[in-house]
Each structure stands twice: as structure tokens, then as C-alpha cells.
């Protein structure tokens, strides 16, 4: 009899859990796209054709077209050299950023496969180093294109025969990424009129470009030498973003090897990240950002970016904010696990609002293949917006908050990073931030601090936050905000 009682209690407990779980239905589903036999599905790029078909490129040089309705793959082109970018022009033509050049790949005879490969731009240098990846193109509303060129890796060398003018000043005697042929480590603008403009320098491994609806350019970079923790940069013409090698290709550069300049000088030259993705907290290798725009399922996040992450089963969401004319903002996980793989190298929104994620490893940490994330009208209970206050933050959530007291549920700390030649940086000047007051007003939470300091990342950890109606816990529980400018 005693046992029966225990069983009844047990059943009651499990039912209760089930109820909680049911109310925690995921607002999206992740499905694996079946890939063609024989394909090594290291995804280099994704985009959509006007008719809704997916175009994908792969590291062994294939470009393939997928019909989401019939679920069939068709070969469009082959033989390309590490194609890491695709921009669809029209139903027969795509721009492909491959290692040696930007190429227009076109089907001129209407048989569904490309037969014309027109070199659009190959005016940059190549040394044969394995790390000379090329990214983009993205296009602004005026029709200008932007591409980014990876610096060369000290993990490899250079060939006897290179393309472009060789200048060994672009290499540090102490190692690290280098730029000994033109424009390695640069973002290049190709104007609609055909001009080539070296646009911004200081990049290390800029594996992701985005143009927002105001024609602003954003570029991600990867942690390493001179890059303390992976950043997102708001890129402006003429800017230098921190990795010194590329400086030698600045017009009129007369200061020799930029690695011989003092760290203070370099620090004064550089533009700081708009957002830092704290290493081991948010992302370790961010990839392509995509803009959330007119998406019926993601209205709460309009104007924000989703960014891929190579090293974890994660996508993150960037919440930009302009403070006194400076663009900065917050970042929080968007999807964490739940069937998502690692190696999230490329992202593209489908015409139906679904998000397609292409994965790669190519000798690094990652996975292979393509996954489709379909959203439902069910809202995720998540942070919708983050605003900097003069001494604190205002967090806006997608739903009203049930909790009446958050005092023990919010933890805040702040830290910053070194700017130095060493690979990566630990968090320095780490302090716990005392939250003096927490005010809950509907779906808003006001955090009040004693003071606020520039140049720090503020990390806000939330726990057991519940929405008023659905009783479900907050989807993602960590938010970091990079404070470059005070309110």
C-alpha cells in the first residue's frame, strides 16, 4: 500500500513536469536537408533564386541548386576554387566569390547549367597560402559590391610564384597573420561604375559581411592575434580595424613594417568592435550575419541580425543600438542546441521566412550539411530589445513578465580585453556589477547600477524569468552588451 502511494506521487510529479514541458514547446523546428550522394557537403555559401530555389556552393568547387518542393538537387557549376560567397543576380546568373576572383557564373543557353564564367574582379594578391579565403559579395542599394579578403596564415607559407606585388613588410617577425600581397586583410568596394576602392583594413579572418537597410556595412572577424575575442565591426570607409598586417597597403603608407609600431599607436589608429562576442560565453568563431527584415515570424526582432557560430551548436542574435551616433549593442544566443549542428558557416532566409543554415568544417571544428529552421507563429519568450541607460539597462521582453521580484535572479558583471599581438585575450578588469534596483513594468525590466563605464562588456545573466501568460521560462538567459559610448 505504501508503494502504491509512492507510485501515485511519482505519477503526479511526472504529469506536472509534462504540463510544464508542453507549455515549453519550441517555437521552431530544425530539419536536416537531404544532400546528394557523393557530395562532401562543406557549405561555402547559400542564397535563394527568384523562383525560391536554394543555390549552395561547396568547398570542392560545386554549385548546386535545390528545389525545396521536389527536394531535388541539380548541379549548376563545378571546378571552382573554394567558393565562399554567392549573390544571386537573376534566374540564370550568380556572382561567386571564389579564392582567386569574383566571378559571374551564368547559364547562357538555358539548359540549367552554367557555361559562362566571367571574371568580375581579380585585382588582389594571392600567395598560395591555405588561409587566403575570400568573402562576400554583399550589395548596397546603390549597386556597389563589397568583398573581404582573409589575411594569410603563419600556419602556412607562400609560394615561389605569387599574384600581385610582394611586400614582406606586411609580416611580423614574431609570427601571426600576414599581408604580403595587396589587400589581404581588407574590405574592397567595387562600385557600380566599375571602380575598385580599397575600403577598410585591419581584418584577420572576416568570414561574414552584411549590408543593413540603411546601407551600413557590418563584418565579423575571428579571435586570434590582435583580435581579443571575436568581434562584429560596423565598417566605415577608411577605417582600420586592428590587425596591423594590412596597413602596408594603405595609400601613401610610409611607416614600413606596421608590426614595428607600438601597441599604443596601433590602438589609436584602430576602430573598435561595435560588438564583441565574448569567447566561451557567446561565440568563438562567428560567421555570416543575416538581417531580420519583413519576416512574419520574427517581427519582434525586426532590424536585428542573426549570426552563425562555427564552434558550437548555436546561432546568436545581435541587437544593434545607436547611442549618440555610435552604433553598438547587445548579443544573445538565438538557437542553442535543439538539433542544430556545429559549423554554422552560412545563413540565408528562404522566401517563406525559414532560415537555412549551411555547415562546414574544412579541417576545423564543425559539421557538414544544410539544416532548415522553420518558425511558427508561436512567440519565443526572449529578450526583444536592450537599451543602454545612463546607469544601467532597459531590457524589453517579447511577453509580459510574471515575476514580481528579480533581485536574486539577475547577475551582472563587466570586463574588457587586451589589444595585443598574442592570440586572443582573457577577460581583464573583471568586476561583479551591483544591481541597485530592478523595476519590472509589464514586459520591461529596468536595471539600475551605481555607475556605468565605457570600454567594457556587460554580461547580464538571467534566471527563472517567467512570462505572464504562458508561464514558460526565458528562452535564452545570457545577454552581453559592448559599451563603447555612454548615454
Amino acid at each position, binding site marked *: 500500500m505504501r508503494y502504491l502511494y509512492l507510485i501515485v506521487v511519482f505519477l503526479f510529479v511526472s504529469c506536472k513536469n509534462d504540463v510544464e514541458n508542453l507549455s515549453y514547446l519550441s517555437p521552431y523546428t530544425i530539419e536536416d536537408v537531404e544532400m546528394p550522394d*557523393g*557530395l562532401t557537403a562543406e557549405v561555402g555559401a547559400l542564397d535563394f533564386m527568384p523562383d525560391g530555389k536554394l543555390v549552395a556552393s561547396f568547398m570542392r568547387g560545386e554549385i548546386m541548386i535545390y528545389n525545396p518542393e521536389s527536394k531535388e*538537387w541539380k548541379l549548376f557549376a563545378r*571546378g571552382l576554387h573554394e567558393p565562399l560567397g554567392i549573390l544571386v543576380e537573376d534566374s540564370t546568373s550568380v556572382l561567386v566569390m571564389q579564392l*582567386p576572383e569574383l566571378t559571374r557564373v551564368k547559364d547562357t543557353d538555358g539548359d540549367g547549367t552554367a557555361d559562362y*564564367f566571367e571574371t568580375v574582379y581579380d585585382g588582389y594578391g594571392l600567395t598560395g597560402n591555405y588561409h587566403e579565403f575570400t568573402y562576400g559579395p554583399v550589395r548596397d542599394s546603390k549597386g556597389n559590391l563589397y568583398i573581404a579578403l582573409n589575411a594569410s596564415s603563419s600556419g602556412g607559407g607562400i609560394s615561389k610564384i605569387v599574384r600581385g606585388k610582394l611586400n614582406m613588410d606586411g609580416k611580423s617577425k614574431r609570427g601571426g597573420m600576414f599581408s604580403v600581397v595587396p589587400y589581404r586583410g581588407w574590405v574592397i568596394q567595387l562600385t557600380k561604375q566599375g571602380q575598385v576602392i580599397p575600403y577598410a583594413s585591419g581584418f584577420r579572418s572576416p568570414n561574414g559581411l552584411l549590408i543593413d537597410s540603411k546601407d551600413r556595412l557590418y563584418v565579423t572577424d575571428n579571435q586570434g592575434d590582435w583580435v581579443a575575442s571575436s568581434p562584429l565591426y560596423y565598417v566605415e570607409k577608411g577605417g582600420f580595424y586592428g590587425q596591423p598586417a594590412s596597413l602596408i597597403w594603405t595609400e601613401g603608407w610610409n611607416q614600413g613594417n606596421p608590426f614595428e609600431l607600438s601597441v599604443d599607436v596601433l590602438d589609436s589608429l584602430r576602430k573598435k568592435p561595435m560588438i564583441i562576442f565574448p569567447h566561451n560565453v557567446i561565440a568563438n568563431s562567428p560567421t555570416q550575419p543575416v538581417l531580420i527584415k519583413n519576416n512574419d515570424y520574427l517581427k519582434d526582432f525586426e532590424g536585428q541580425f542573426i549570426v552563425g557560430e562555427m564552434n558550437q551548436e548555436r546561432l546568436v542574435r545581435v541587437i544593434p543600438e545607436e547611442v549618440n551616433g555610435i552604433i553598438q549593442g547587445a548579443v544573445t544566443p538565438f538557437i542553442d542546441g535543439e538539433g542544430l549542428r556545429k559549423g554554422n558557416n552560412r545563413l540565408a532566409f528562404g522566401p517563406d521566412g525559414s532560415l537555412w543554415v549551411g555547415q562546414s568544417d574544412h*579541417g576545423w571544428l564543425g559539421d557538414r550539411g544544410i539544416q532548415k529552421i522553420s518558425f511558427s507563429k508561436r512567440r519565443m519568450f526572449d529578450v526583444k530589445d536592450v537599451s543602454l541607460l545612463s546607469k544601467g539597462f532597459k531590457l524589453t521582453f517579447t511577453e509580459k513578465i510574471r515575476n514580481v521580484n528579480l533581485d536574486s535572479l539577475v547577475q551582472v558583471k563587466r570586463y574588457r580585453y587586451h589589444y595585443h599581438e598574442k592570440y586572443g585575450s582573457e577577460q581583464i578588469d573583471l568586476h561583479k556589477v551591483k544591481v541597485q534596483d530592478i523595476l519590472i513594468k509589464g514586459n520591461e525590466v529596468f536595471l539600475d547600477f551605481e555607475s556605468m563605464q565605457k570600454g567594457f562588456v556587460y554580461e547580464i545573466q538571467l534566471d527563472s524569468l517567467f512570462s505572464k501568460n504562458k508561464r514558460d521560462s526565458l528562452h535564452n538567459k545570457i545577454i552581453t552588451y559592448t559599451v563603447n559610448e555612454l548615454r
Partner: protein
Amino acid sequence: MILLDKRPLKIFFQNVLKINEWKVFFLILCACCINTSFLFSQSNENKATIELSVLPGLQFDKVRFHVKPKQKVKISFTNTDDMDHNLLILLPGSRERVVAKANRLGSDGHNKNYNPATEDVLWALPILQGKESKILEFVAPDKEGIYPYVCTVPGHGTIMYGAMYVSNQASMPDITIDGNIPESRRTVEKTATVAHPFSLKPPYYYRTYIEGVSPAAIIMHLPHRLSYCWDASSCKLVLVWEGDFVDNTDIWKGHKDARSKILGNVFYNEKVQVPIEIIGNNVKNKVAFKGYKIVKGGYLELHYTLDDVDIYETIKDVEHGQALLREFRILGLEQNVYFNYTATPKVEYFYKGKKLVGNKIEMKAEDAQSFSVLLKLEK
């Protein structure tokens, strides 16, 4: 009792007559006799059947297997690659020696199936072309040991090999530390079995890194076992080779410096600055790559400009792979040009049916608007 399938048996006897390999013959005769008695005494002993095929990047799909001494072995070898491969089973420790001897067979190698006359070779299958299958049956040596198997087609033997473990105990060392198999296979990971989601039927091409050429290389494999490399930086044909195409295994791994490895024999290496040179004052002869079209037959029509003149070059193999046809179209040409080439032993250039001498020929503007030259390999 059939020791070998018909062709190797024939080759074997030819070899015996030619090169006096009585020792091997004797050894096999002994093995045969021993095995016969063995069969009578233990007729329930199983035959070891090994299915062997080829993975991309010069590797056997199985890099090791185990048999017992004196066990009957049947190897069913299918060449699932687009390159030629043979199969030799060798005495322990002799692989590098045999591979070197096979390489030294030189131009005679193909006729001899790259099977050098040496007692190190125990059993062999001749060259199998793509999709061909053959069976090799033999009785495993009575002496325990690690017997290498290898493909000795030139360039293959240093990486395309495996190990037959002959021992009474059915144990093999941990694969990750097994020094008898290629380094790339000392892993428990599975290797992809095909290179692409389509079959590779020449002509086909890659843009890639390749040794001795700028990093903007275009390489193409032609239908009759000729291949070329055209450099998109200097806008010219730079290498021509015969035999197999390239091994992309390393370059496809990523995350380290690597090149596509040429598998054939390079017989033409262009040294001239510009193959087509405009004659005149104020001529810079500056090139710019413009792209290419895939034309009839799957060939590439490569396009570049020389100063402001558009030049198109299409390269095909003709005369059953004995010659390379270079077809040029030059638009809006007003001046005379030189066609420059590198004088190379065993290579002859022909223009309008005539053999060229020296290293250049002058052409009148009207002749050069559309012309072709033949690059022939002297046999």
C-alpha cells in the same frame, strides 16, 4: 588447383621464362603442395575472401586485413577509380624497394604492368582500368609476417598500399599506430568514397593551387589522358602532362598548405612571358584574365586581353592523345604578332602542317585572327 587467375598466371610464366624466377616458382609450388596436404587434413578451414576497391586520393578502401598462414585467400579487386591501378603482394619489408624498381621500368613500365622482375613480388594483378574487376587467388605464406600490398603505377606506390597480416592470432595492432599502413589512414574515421556528386568524365577541370604555377591555376583533364594547366594570372598555358590527372586529397582537407598533386608525366613547361606577343612600338603586352566559356565537347574557351585586344584560346587533345591542339581567336587585331613557345626535347610544334623550328613564329595580323598550333609529343 588454381593459384592465380588466368592473366597473372600467364604473366607469371612469361616472367619465369624471361627472368629466371625459379625461386618464386618453387616457393609457390611448395605452398601449393603444403596447402594440398593442409586441405586434406583440415578441409573445413575457411577461404578468406577480401573485397578490395579504390577510394579517391590514391588509396585502397581496405588498408589492412588478416589471414592465417597457409589459408586460401581470394582477393576480388575492383578498380572503382578513374585512374589505372595494379595490385602486387610482396615479401615483408620490400615495398619501397619494389616501388623504386617499378618506377625505373620507365617507358617500358606500362607494358610490364609496372611489375618489376624481382623475387620480392609474390603475386600480382596487372593494370586494371576504371570499372575493371579481377580476382587473385593464392595460398597465404606459411611464414607469419606483415606482407605489403601496393599499386606500383608511378606516383601511386608511396601512398597507395596496405598490409596483409599473416598470423595464427587474429590480432592486428591499434590502427592509429600501425606503421604498415599509410599515415592518412591511421584513423578510425570513415573516408568519403567518392569525390563529387557526379561522375568525372573528361574533359573536366578545377581551379586550384598547383606546384610551379601561380595560385590562380586552372587545370583540365582531357579525354585521352592528357592534362594541362593554364595560369589565369599570366594568361597562358604553362604545363602539359600525360597520364593520370591530379590527386586533390591534401588540398581538400583544408587547414594547411597543400597543392593539387600532378599524377602524370609533365612534358611541356612554358617559359615564355607571353605566348602571343603584339609586335610594335608602344606595345606593353599586358595581360588581363576575363574568364572562360564551356564550349562544345566540354572544353574551355579561355579569354584574356593583351593590351586591349581580346584573345580566346581553346585547348583540346587530338590524335588519340598524342597531340594538343591550341586554337586561337584574336579580335580586332591590327598588328602582326609573334607566337612564342618553349623549345622542348621530344615536343614538336606544328603550324599549318609544318614543323616549327626555334622558339617563335611571326604571323601577319590577318592570319593571326584565327589560327591553331599543334603541340605533339614525340614517341
